[in-house]
Each structure stands twice: as structure tokens, then as C-alpha cells.
């Protein structure tokens, strides 16, 4: 068995049945091994970055590490943005990159790029495999590292000659990993847990802030149960949308710069904030030092380095969310929040949205609300980046589905490939990518992947002929000096849909929106729907 065949055996041992990638000479032995193993389906994307984003969508729906593959040099460097995106959002990926022959490493030969060096700050860990016999161990470790502790992407860079080399001993996939420097803490510290319980019991106005870590740690159910049992209200970050349904009586929206004013008011009036699986990043908590001075902060995270990075919590607690909340669910908590909940309800109903939206074309808030209400209960909504993302996060009606977006890196072009991955992970589920006309054009080459695979992905484009969020920024900060943001009316989406055998729908007013959305969602095949939006509409 050669190295490439061993790589495929490792993937099979990990239960991988589908990978996303683009081949090249430096990864050709691996593709030869794939040719012999049709049980692993290879999805050919059209640019390597999309392989990473598609794997990200796939991983988020299957809740397991997903695999993307590229060749060396430019193929591999194209993947870096996707790795950085996955790293910022803690998405478990295994990125396999071909490399030039090991004897040529460091000689700047054709299509050589130092991928370990280039991705050092964008991956959880990386390997450059120089010995073919290391392949089983490296793969076992990589899957373990990607999917445990704080999850993230792991890079395996494999020189072409190592893929061709014969293993000197029989292939055996290890059952265990031994990494002496890696033992993520899972169980929360008992003493800290006691402090957390005492703090909740002292609190009259507790509030949970649920981040993406709740979803990554499969903690939605247990967090929900804890909130319901003890009548503790919660807000979420953008990545934490989906912890509970939007209509849940204890949910008070997304916090932060782009969040609901009543969610921020809740934070401002709480006496105890439990931050759970969230990074306390600048967009969610713009002034952490103010919070720190004013209230008791409990910070629960699997990654101890996140605790104390932005704000020094009163009570830090490191561990796996499910273990910790299982313990909290058992605990004797007897805080009476009824008055606090009444107050929060009042915030919610008295907050006035002062934003004014144009009467022209489609109202983006109505669009997101109507779309998400019409979507299946368990549908996957993939929001891109830009105004579309903020309108989505603000107005999306979460039922029992998933809201996927890139909150950390904010990578434009994420939604289409991520939606492809999500759809392939669960073909029965409705998957809709929502993007602006700017983000669409950053991934529109992936329409070919959709056409070939016949994945029934729906793409909804909010077209305002601008890079809208930058335009909005220039309007507010640079006196309306619109610089480099106008997209004009290209492409002709109807022709594009036709070119890729996709169905096409279009709404240019609130009156036609409803019926057109129905047709769009009912269509059994891949489809593009363009909604024209007035560029004068802002997110704030």
C-alpha cells in the first residue's frame, strides 16, 4: 500500500464518504487512490476557497470534521481564506494539501508554497508529513484535534513523493491518540461550578449570552432546558442564533452593534451575565471593560485562552458546555426572576425601531422575515456577509433550523459554497443561501458545482447594485463619498441561471414578493431568486 492509498484508508476509517476539492499534480497520487475507491465521493468545486467553505457547511450540519483537498502552491494558498474563516468560527475541517517532493522542499520549485508557515495562525494545528509510515497516526491525530476541545481546522500537507512511497509496514489505523501536550479539559472545575451556582442564586437579574460554542458543543438542548427550568432569560451572539427559537419566551434577541436594542438593554440592566461559548468579540460587546466594572460575569468556555482575553470575568469556568450545563441542570437554583422577566418583556415591547426603509422595491426586513417564516421548520439558512448578513441576523425567524454564517472572519462569498456543503450533508433539508449581489459574485463560479451535482440549493440575492455595507459606511463616515462600491446591474442573473440550468425568480416589489417566494421555495430544483432592494436602505 502506498501513502495515497493509506490516506484514503484513513478517511474511510473515519467514516468519511464525501470530500470537496480540486486536484493537481502534487496531489495526483491521492486522486489515483480515490479512483480506486468510489465509496468516497469527490465533489469538484471550481475554486479551492469554495472547497473549504463547502466543507465548513458540511461539517456544521453533520457536526463532524469535513475534508477538503487541494494541490500544492496556488491551489493550497487559495484555501487559506477558508481555513482562516473556519478557524475564526471554530469549525472542524481536515485540509489535505499536496506538496512538492520532499527532496525539493525549500528550493522554491514550481508550485511550492510553505503551507505550514503560511497557515500557522489560521489552523488549530498543522502537519507536514515526511515519512509515509506516519500517515495513519497523523490522520488519527488530525481528526481528534479538529473535533475535540475548541474545534478548528487542521492542515495535513503531504509531499507528492510521500504519497507515492510504499508503507514499510502493514496499514493499521490507530485506535487511540497520544498527544502529550493536548488534553482539553472537559469537566468543569467543581469549585468554580459551586461559585457559579452561588452567583446565580445571589442574582436577581441573571442573563445568559449564548455564543456559537453552544451550537458547536451540541449544547442547545441542555442550555434551553436550564433556562426553562430556572426561568433564566437569554440573548445570543450572531453565531449563537439558533440556541432557541426566535419565539421562545425567554429569548431576547441578538446583542451587539448589529443586534436588537432590547437585547443590549437586557445586558445593560442585568446584574449577572453568563457568557457561554462566546468570544466576547468587539461586534458583540464593544466595551467589555464597562461590563466588567458593573456586573458579575461568569465566562464558560472550552478554550481557557478565551477567558480573560477581552474581559476579566468574576468567575471563569473552563469545560465542555454539555458537561457543565448537565451539572447546572441538577443544581439547586432558586432565584426568582419573574420581575426581571416582566421588565425584559417591557423592553422588548416598548423598544421602537427608528429605522426608516424605502418604499421602493423590496423591503429587506420584510424579505428576511417572510422568507424565514415560509421556510421549513428545520431548514438551513446560510447568510453571507454584508448588509444581507445583518438584515438576516436581525430578522431571521428561527424555528427549529440552522442559521449558518461566518461571524468571526466575515468572509464574503461564504454562503453559496457553504450551502452546497450543507445541502449535501442533509439532502432532505431545505437549504437557502442568502447573499448580496457583491458576495454572490465572489462565489458565482460555484453555480457549476450546483449544476453538476444537482444539489437543490436555493440562492436568494438581495440586489442593490452596491457593496452595500461599505456604501453605508461611506455614507455615514465619509460624507457619502462612494468610492469603489458601485456594482452596476451586472450580471444578468436570469441569463446566469439559464447558463447553469437553474430556475430563476425575481421580485421587485413587496407586492410580488410573497407569491414569488412561494414559487421559489416550492421549486424542487436549484434556483436563483433576485430581490431588488433600494440601495438607500441601511442596516442601522
Amino acid at each position, binding site marked *: 500500500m502506498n501513502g495515497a492509498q493509506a490516506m484514503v484508508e484513513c478517511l474511510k476509517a473515519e467514516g468519511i464518504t464525501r470530500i470537496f476539492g480540486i486536484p493537481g499534480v502534487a496531489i495526483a497520487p491521492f486522486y489515483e487512490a480515490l479512483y480506486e475507491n468510489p465509496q468516497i465521493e469527490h465533489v469538484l468545486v471550481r475554486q479551492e476557497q469554495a472547497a473549504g467553505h463547502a466543507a465548513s457547511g458540511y461539517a456544521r450540519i453533520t457536526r463532524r470534521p469535513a475534508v477538503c483537498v487541494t494541490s500544492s502552491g496556488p491551489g493550497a494558498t487559495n484555501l487559506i481564506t477558508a481555513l482562516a474563516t473556519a478557524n475564526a468560527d471554530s469549525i472542524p475541517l481536515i485540509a489535505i494539501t499536496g506538496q512538492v517532493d520532499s527532496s525539493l522542499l525549500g528550493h522554491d520549485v514550481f508550485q511550492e508554497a510553505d503551507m*505550514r*508557515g503560511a497557515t*500557522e*495562525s489560521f489552523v*488549530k*494545528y498543522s502537519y*507536514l508529513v515526511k515519512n509515509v509510515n506516519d500517515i495513519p497516526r497523523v490522520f488519527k491525530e488530525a481528526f481528534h*484535534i479538529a473535533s475535540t476541545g475548541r474545534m478548528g481546522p487542521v492542515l495535513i500537507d503531504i509531499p507528492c513523493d510521500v504519497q507515492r512511497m510504499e508503507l514499510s509496514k502493514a496499514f493499521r489505523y490507530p485506535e487511540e491518540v497520544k*498527544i*502529550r*501536550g*493536548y488534553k482539553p479539559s472537559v469537566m468543569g472545575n467543581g469549585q468554580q461550578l459551586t461559585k457559579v451556582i452561588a452567583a446565580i442564586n445571589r442574582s436577581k437579574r441573571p442573563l445568559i449570552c449564548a455564543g456559537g460554542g453552544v451550537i458547536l458543543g451540541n449544547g442547545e438542548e441542555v442550555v434551553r432546558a436550564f433556562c426553562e427550568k430556572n426561568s433564566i432569560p437569554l440573548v445570543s451572539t450572531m453565531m449563537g442564533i439558533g440556541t432557541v427559537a426566535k419565539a421562545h419566551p425567554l429569548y431576547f434577541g441578538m446583542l451587539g452593534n448589529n443586534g436588537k436594542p432590547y437585547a443590549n438593554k437586557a445586558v445593560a440592566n442585568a446584574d449577572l451575565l453568563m457568557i457561554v461559548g462566546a468570544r466576547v468579540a468587539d461586534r458583540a460587546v464593544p466595551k467589555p471593560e464597562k461590563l466588567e466594572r458593573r456586573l458579575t460575569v461568569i465566562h464558560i468556555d472550552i*478554550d*481557557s*485562552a478565551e*477567558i*480573560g*482575553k477581552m474581559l*476579566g470575568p468574576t468567575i471563569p469556568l473552563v469545560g465542555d458546555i454539555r458537561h457543565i450545563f448537565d451539572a447546572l441542570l441538577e443544581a439547586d437554583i432558586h432565584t426568582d426572576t419573574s420581575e426581571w422577566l416582566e421588565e425584559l418583556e417591557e423592553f422588548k415591547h416598548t423598544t421602537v425601531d427608528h429605522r426608516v426603509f424605502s418604499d421602493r422595491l423590496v423591503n429587506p426586513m420584510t424579505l428576511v422575515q417572510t422568507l424565514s417564516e415560509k421556510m421549513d421548520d428545520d431548514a438551513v439558512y446560510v447568510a453571507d456577509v454584508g448588509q444581507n448578513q445583518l438584515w438576516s441576523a436581525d430578522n431571521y425567524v428561527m424555528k427549529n433550523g440552522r442559521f449558518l454564517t461566518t461571524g468571526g472572519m466575515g468572509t464574503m462569498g461564504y454562503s453559496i459554497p457553504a450551502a452546497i456543503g450543507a445541502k449535501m450533508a442533509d439532502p432532505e433539508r431545505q437549504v437557502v443561501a442568502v447573499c448580496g449581489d457583491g458576495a454572490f459574485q465572489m462565489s458565482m463560479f460555484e453555480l457549476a458545482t450546483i449544476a453538476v451535482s444537482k444539489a437543490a440549493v436555493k440562492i436568494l440575492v438581495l440586489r442593490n447594485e452596491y457593496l452595500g455595507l461599505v456604501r453605508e459606511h461611506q455614507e455615514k463616515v465619509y460624507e457619502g463619498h462612494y468610492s469603489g462600491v458601485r456594482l452596476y446591474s451586472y450580471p444578468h442573473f436570469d441569463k446566469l441561471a439559464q447558463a447553469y440550468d437553474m430556475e430563476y425568480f425575481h421580485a421587485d416589489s413587496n407586492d410580488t414578493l410573497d407569491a414569488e417566494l412561494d414559487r421559489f421555495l416550492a421549486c424542487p430544483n436549484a434556483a436563483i431568486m433576485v430581490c431588488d432592494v433600494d440601495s438607500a436602505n441601511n442596516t442601522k
Partner: protein
Amino acid sequence: MKGIFSVLVENKDGVLSQIAGLFSRRGFNIDSLAVGETDKHDISSMTIVSTADQRTIDQIEKHLNKKMDVIKVRRLEEAKAVSLEMMLIKVSYTAQTRSSLIELCSVMGAKIMHISAKSIMIEIHNTPDVVGEFLELLKSFGILEVQRTGTISMAKG
């Protein structure tokens, strides 16, 4: 404050650059970094000294611990550890300055390793403070070249 970290790491390629990259990327300051193999050939030991506020020092420790190839991080307290540094320094001399230079070396416990017609190469190993003071004292003679190893530290007891 000063943070002294004694760090055991996997002795394999790329680890030093990972650690150095961590400091530069996160804007942590490195006062000194010394690396060498331990008695086990697959484990290296690093002593990293950094000056920062308490929260940053805590963050450094957490981020070091987070690295897959870091086996163990120990934070050393200055008073409860022995810290040493070695320096090689080349100083120019004249007939008039030679004897006072030799005298200074002998007072400071420094050794003269080589003498040429115009310069003296001196070795000193001592606490980082003393090495620093010695360097200051030599400035008036005319320093030609300096090599410092960086601090290595070990907890007492």
C-alpha cells in the same frame, strides 16, 4: 511585571517558529528566549521572559498551554527560581585601559577568553541583572561585539 516561563516542548521542526509566531501575532513582548534539548532527545526546554501586565502574562500562559506541541508550562517566580544568563563580549583596549579592564573582569567574576592586539573577549555568566550591569560598565571601553544567550531559569527545590 516580569513573567518567566519554563516551557517543555516537543523537539521537532517548526515548534520554535510556532512559539515565536504566537508572541508576535498576539503582540506579546519577548525579553529573551533560550532553547535547548533536555535529557530526553525528543523534548526541548525553553525559558521565555516577557514583561507585561498581569492579564497579558496570564494570557501568555494560556496561549502557550494551548499549543499542541507544548508539553508543560511552568511560571517561575523570580525569588523562587535560579536565573542565569551567559554573555560573550568583545571590548577594545589600549595600554592605558587594559589593567582597569582586567581588574573589572576579576571583580565581576568574568573570564577573559581571548586577547588580541586591540581587543579582549570576555565571558560572564550570572543573573540577567548582573550581566546587564556588566555590559553597562564595559560601554566606556568601547564594545565591539555582544552575544547573549538569553535567560535560562529553573525553580528552586
